C-alpha cells in the first residue's frame, strides 16, 4: 500500500506546479494565489523551485523503479502456509550489500493443498549458499494464505517444515500407500544399504529406487533385512549408496514394511 504514497505526493506536486503555471500565464494579479502558499514576486519562487525538484526526483525514481516496486514483497505477519518449492531460475539483481550479491529466485511453489503457482523471492546469498539454490533444487517457503506473491524462505530445520514435507510427499504420492503407516507412525532405527536399483519411475522430479536394507535396531533386537521402495530427489542420491548409513522406519508390528530415510525423521504429529 505504501507505493501509493509517493504517487499521491507526486500528483499533489503536479497540481501545485500546474496551478502556479496557470496563475502566472493567465492571472491578472500575480501577487494573489488560490493556493495557501503565497506567490513570490520579484525573486525566485522558492516553493515552485523546490516543488519542481521534488516532482522531478519522484518522477525519475518512479520511472526507473516501477518493476522493483511491484516486486517488493514483505514477509508480513499473521498465519503462514508452508510449501515446498522447486527452483526454476536464479539470476542476480545487480545489487550487492557488503559484497554479498542479491539474487532473484523464481520458484514453482507446490502447496500441500491447492494448485501450484509460480512466484519469486529476492535474497542475499553468499557463494556457498547459492550453490544450494540451483534450478531443480527444492526449497521450503512460506506465504500468507491467499497471497502467493508474498513468499519468504522457511527455516528448513524447523519441525514444521519437516511435517510439511511429509504431508506434501504423502499428498503427491511419493510414499506408497502401504508404507504411509511406517513413515508416519513407525520407529526410526539405524540401517545400512545393502543394494539398490532404480525402478525407472519418476514423480514430481524425484526418482524411485528400491533399496535392500540391513536394519540394526538400537534396542538390541536382532538385525534383519528388508526391501524399501522410496522416491528420492536426484540431488540426494549421493547419500544412498551401497554401505551408506541410513534410517529405516517401520511399525514394530509390521517390520516387513520399511520406509527408508536418509536422516532420522519424526513421524506425523
Amino acid at each position: 500500500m505504501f507505493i501509493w504514497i509517493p504517487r499521491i505526493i507526486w500528483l499533489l506536486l503536479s497540481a501545485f506546479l500546474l496551478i502556479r503555471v496557470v496563475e502566472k500565464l493567465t492571472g491578472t494579479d500575480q501577487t494573489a494565489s488560490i493556493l495557501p502558499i503565497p506567490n513570490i514576486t520579484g525573486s525566485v519562487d522558492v516553493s515552485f523551485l523546490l516543488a519542481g525538484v521534488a516532482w522531478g526526483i519522484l518522477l525519475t525514481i518512479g520511472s526507473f523503479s516501477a518493476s522493483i516496486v511491484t516486486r517488493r514483497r514483505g514477509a508480513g505477519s499473521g498465519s503462514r502456509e508452508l510449501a515446498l518449492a522447486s527452483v526454476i531460475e536464479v539470476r542476480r539483481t545487480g545489487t550487492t550489500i557488503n559484497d554479498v550479491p542479491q539474487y532473484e529466485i523464481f520458484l514453482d511453489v507446490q502447496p500441500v493443498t491447492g494448485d501450484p503457482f509460480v512466484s519469486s523471492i529476492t535474497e542475499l546469498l553468499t557463494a556457498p549458499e547459492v550453490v544450494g539454490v540451483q534450478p531443480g533444487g527444492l526449497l521450503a517457503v512460506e506465504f500468507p494464505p491467499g497471497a502467493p506473491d508474498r513468499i519468504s524462505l522457511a527455516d528448513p530445520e524447523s519441525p514444521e517444515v519437516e511435517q510439511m514435507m511429509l504431508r506434501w510427499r504423502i499428498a503427491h504420492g511419493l510414499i506408497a500407500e502401504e508404507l504411509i503407516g511406517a513413515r508416519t507412525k513407525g520407529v526410526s532405527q539405524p540401517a545400512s544399504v545393502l543394494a539398490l536399483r532404480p525402478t525407472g519411475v519418476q514423480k514430481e522430479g524425484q526418482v524411485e529406487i528400491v533399496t535392500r536394507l540391513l536394519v540394526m535396531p538400537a534396542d538390541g533386537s536382532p538385525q534383519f533385512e528388508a526391501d524399501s521402495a522410496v522416491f528420492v530427489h536426484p540431488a540426494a542420491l549421493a547419500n544412498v549408496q551401497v554401505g551408506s548409513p541410513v534410517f529405516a522406519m517401520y511399525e514394530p508390528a509390521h517390520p516387513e514394511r520399511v520406509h527408508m530415510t536418509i536422516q532420522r525423521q519424526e513421524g506425523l504429529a
Partner: protein
Amino acid sequence: MNIMDTIVWLANFPATHAYEMVFLGAFSAMGLIGAARRRGPSRSRLEQLRIERGLQEPEFSLGSRIAAQARSWFFFVLALFVLSGLAIAIASLIFGPVTRGYIYDHGVRADTIVDDEFASFETVTFDAEDGTRYTLDLPFFSPVTYPDRNASASGTDALVVRYLPDHPQAYVVDTRESVDSWGEPIGK
C-alpha cells in the same frame, strides 16, 4: 488570435522563471524521457514464467494497452514542454529572457500605475487596452527590460511596458521610454 503571440506567451514563462525551470527541468529530464520511452505494457520475468506455465493470460488486455499508450504519449508531450522550457530557461539565464525582443516589437504600449496602492518594487501594474488591470511579477533575476537588456527597473518607477495584446502577462519594460524616480531614462 496570433499563433506566434501565443507561442511567445508560453515561452515567456520559462524565460522569466529561468532559475525555477532549470532546476525543474534538470531534475525531471531523465524521468520524463524514461516514462515517454515506455511504449507499451511490459512483462516481468515472473509474468513470463507464469505465461509459459499457462498460469496467466499471454495477451495484454485492450484497456491496459490503451492506458500504457496514452500514458506514454502524455509523458512524451510533457517531456517536450518541460525540455523546451529547460532549453529556453538555460538560454535566458545566459542571455536574459529570450522573448523580450519579440514582445517589444509586437507589444502594445502602456504606462504603469504608480500610487500608494499599487506601487511595489517587485510588481508592475498597468491597464490593458480592454480596461483590465494587471498586476504582474517584475522578476529581478530574469530582467524583462528591453532594448537595454542590462537596465534595472523597479515597480516604483514610472515605467512604460509593452505587452502582447492577447496575452498581457507577457510584457517587457521599455527602457527607452521609462524613467526612474529621478526622472532619468532607465536605459542607455
